[in-house]
């Protein structure tokens, strides 16, 4: 019974990482954002695996339902002329440098994680289930300030986004 969650986790992790890796280095931005939507679903699957189903569904709702839609909109709005897709992958040296830096960060992180003793064990997988009711009570009691601030932040951010995006420049034509 103990191997089953591990196998599930490994499958989720490998698929998500693979799809993300492919997605981020595709030339076509549309393919890229659609594949990224899949990898966000993968991350949601991880949340489900971890027992946080509310977070998982919120993840799908926000990322697949909203963020990728907004991204696709942005792509369509900014690709009026057929863009030279090659240009969007940066200069060669820059690109390689970026990948190298990321690989180095990955190495450091993985080594750091692997050498840290942690308590989460194979056999005693406790099933922490956080019900929606619990989340509601938590939000109401402990995190009410944060909730309000996030609400204000979202409102302001959306208003700001609308203002920034709709600021029609005075065209001298």
């Amino acid at each position: 019974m103990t191997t089953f969650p591990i196998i599930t986790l490994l499958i989720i992790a490998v698929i998500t990482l693979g799809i993300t890796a492919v997605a981020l280095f595709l030339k076509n931005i549309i393919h890229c954002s659609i594949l990224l939507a899949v990898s966000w679903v993968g991350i949601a699957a991880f949340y489900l695996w971890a027992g946080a189903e509310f977070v998982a569904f919120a993840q799908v709702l926000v990322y697949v339902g909203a963020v990728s839609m907004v991204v696709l909109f942005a792509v369509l709005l900014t690709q009026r002329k057929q863009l030279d897709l090659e240009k969007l992958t940066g200069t060669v040296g820059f690109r390689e440098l970026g990948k190298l830096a990321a690989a180095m960060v990955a190495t450091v992180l993985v080594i750091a994680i692997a050498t840290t003793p942690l308590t989460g064990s194979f056999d005693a997988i406790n099933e922490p289930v956080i019900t929606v009711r619990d989340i509601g009570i938590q939000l109401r009691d402990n995190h009410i300030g944060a909730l309000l601030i996030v609400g204000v932040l979202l409102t302001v951010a959306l208003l700001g986004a609308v203002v920034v995006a709709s600021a029609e420049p005075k065209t001298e034509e």
Partner: protein
Amino acid sequence: MTILHLCLIFSALLFSLGLAAALARSSGILVLLGIELMLNAANINFIAFWKFSPNPENGTGAMFAIFSIAVAAAEAAVGLALIIAIYRHQSSIRLQDANTLKG
């Protein structure tokens, strides 16, 4: 090595992928998506630590993840609005082209 290690490595690799995208791609949208991925990797850490914490009942990790998803949504909206604004000025979403402060 424990399951928690696996979760953390998963998140670290995802973070690095996001970092690579943010550094290596020059399309503004893709850089933004890379940053979103990094945020997601952080969320994975929150959930993982919450799952293997000694007292998961109070659900702090999950709460943090929910807030962070909300903030990420706001960030995506503002970021994309900025990209559209940049596109208006430069008629390009290459970040190399957005190198002047004058509009």
